[in-house]
């Protein structure tokens, strides 16, 4: 009786959360699966469509490009957004002055609403009076077309994305670096290890888990890039910046009633990301065992 009562109270406290998760987190996962096999315009009752949605998505002229662009964006964003924050954190950790200011400044763009960063950079990218071409002009370099050229548009998106996101990675690395016991460095030094050797044999092994974890998190996050192409290029020029998430949005809201196709494309993106997510889950488990 006591046990029953305790369970009843507990589920009383839990019911709001259970309802929220059921309707807005668990059910949409199932719905995603079902949706990809349906034809629906959200008004009439949905019809079974078999594999039509998948066929339509694959046949879309932008399909291949979207995947290539997404992978290219992710790789470029990793080169900038993965190496730069770690290097920054390494240097910041060595500094004995202005630490507070530097942390504040690095994290500042993360606090801005993304739309502010994106619209600000749209102005910087302006080929005429935009800041970037003015700076290039200062060094007597020719201006670039940035967002207007299919060869520089994607890298321009990477620049914005790195600027507005690198702060959180930097601070996470910094916290990890500060957890490295100083005895390890002392021992390495006694063994005659130089600065680079200390980084290689102490710093990197000691931060290995968080480095791998962040790698996975960043891959999963950048594969879903949407705001940058949506606001800056609209997928252009010549589909040079259409990403999978952007194409999904277009299927659902621009092409008209393509919710089923969007669902099918979402399933494909899900499968691609699942591999990384599974790997990340394993890493988190290792991490808990280590910290426990």
């Amino acid at each position, binding site marked *: 009786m006591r046990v029953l009562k*305790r*369970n009843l*109270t*507990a*589920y009383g406290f*839990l019911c*709001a*959360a*259970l309802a*929220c*998760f059921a309707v*807005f*987190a*668990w*059910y*949409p*996962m199932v*719905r*995603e699966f079902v*949706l990809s096999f349906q034809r629906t315009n*959200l008004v009439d009752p949905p019809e079974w469509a078999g594999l039509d949605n998948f066929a339509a998505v694959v046949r879309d002229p932008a399909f291949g490009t979207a995947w290539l662009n997404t992978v290219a964006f992710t790789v470029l964003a990793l080169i900038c957004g993965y190496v730069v924050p770690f290097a920054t954190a390494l*240097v*910041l*950790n*060595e500094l*004995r002055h202005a630490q507070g*200011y530097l942390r504040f*400044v*690095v*994290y*500042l763009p993360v*606090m*801005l*609403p*993304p*739309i*502010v960063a994106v*619209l*600000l950079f749209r102005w910087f990218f302006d080929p005429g*009076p935009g800041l970037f071409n*003015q700076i290039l002009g200062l060094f007597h370099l020719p201006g670039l077309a940035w967002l207007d050229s299919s060869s520089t548009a994607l890298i321009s998106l990477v620049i914005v994305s790195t*600027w507005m996101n690198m702060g959180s990675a930097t601070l*996470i690395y910094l916290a990890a670096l500060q957890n490295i016991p*100083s005895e390890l*460095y002392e021992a390495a030094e006694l063994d005659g290890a130089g600065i680079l050797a*200390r*980084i290689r044999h102490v710093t990197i092994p000691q931060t290995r888990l968080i480095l791998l*974890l962040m790698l996975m998190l960043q891959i999963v996050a950048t594969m*879903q890039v*949407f705001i940058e192409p949506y606001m800056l290029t609209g997928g252009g020029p010549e589909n040079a910046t259409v990403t999978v998430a952007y194409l*999904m949005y277009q299927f659902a*809201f621009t092409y008209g009633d393509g*919710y089923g196709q969007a669902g099918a494309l*979402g399933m494909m*993106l*899900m499968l691609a990301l699942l591999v990384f997510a599974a790997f*990340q*889950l394993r*890493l988190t488990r290792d*991490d808990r065992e280590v910290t426990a």
Partner: protein
Amino acid sequence: MISVGARASARRARERGRPRPIEVRFRTIVSPHQLNSRWGRRIYWAVLLTVLTFSTLAFVFPLYWMVTGAMKSGEELARMPPTLVPQAPTLDAFAEAWELFDIGLLLRNTAFYALGGWLVTMAVDVSAAYALSKLRPALGNVVLGAMLATLMVPPMVVLIPLYVTVSDLGLLNDPWGLWLPAAANGFNIFLLKRFFDSIPKELVEAALIDGAGPLRVLWSVILPVSRPILGVVSIFTIVTSFKDFVWPLLVMTDSDRMTISVGLSQTAGAVSQNAIMAGLVIAGIPTVVVFFFFQRHIMAGLTAGSIKG
């Protein structure tokens, strides 16, 4: 007596001649000895200066450019090469932006969504974490696992089905369409539960012996000692909701119900550049102010987030 005074002043003079050593509180890659050698010190100051200059240029200068851009006239803004300091700073663009974007309304909407979302999220997530941590129902771990599993699902993937669900429920253009999905946040529950787990059992048992019911225990025992974590979760919930773009873009489509991010994005094509910048400055101020005051909480929450998985 005289000789003692002379010796002290000689030592002071020697110390003045030699630069003060760089203080090292914890040892890092570079050893304190290396750092305080003659070259170590030179390199250190050179690196410090470079890092300060570079990070200010990279992260503060763009914001300076935004603020001053909003204070320049349209003619000055188009000038090449640009002026570093506005020649005749005016706030006209701010007034113009306020009118054109209807920023008062957008800010009020965004604040209402953020605060309402915070109340709903806290009520739902705190009580769930309390139940899972202290009341320990049967199958509690299964429930927790299912909630944490949602963190593994990429948000863009469930975006469309979530939209379809919200649309089926008739919650489009309804604040509940923002609040309820936001409350289903496994990470909040994880953080809160982990903190509640660390509260000693004796504290709860003592209250129970005194005849307090479970709600009373939550309100008068758990919540007062959980202020740090409640602060972190609150700040993150409010800031995230203020910054959110994609979901409000889909759900709040009526022009008089838009958030500030969505409103700016929809009107930005149709107004002059200095008015856009003024709009961006206004949209950026609230979160930057929050960051200024709650820096410590935000950074603590961030590192708690690094083990989120």
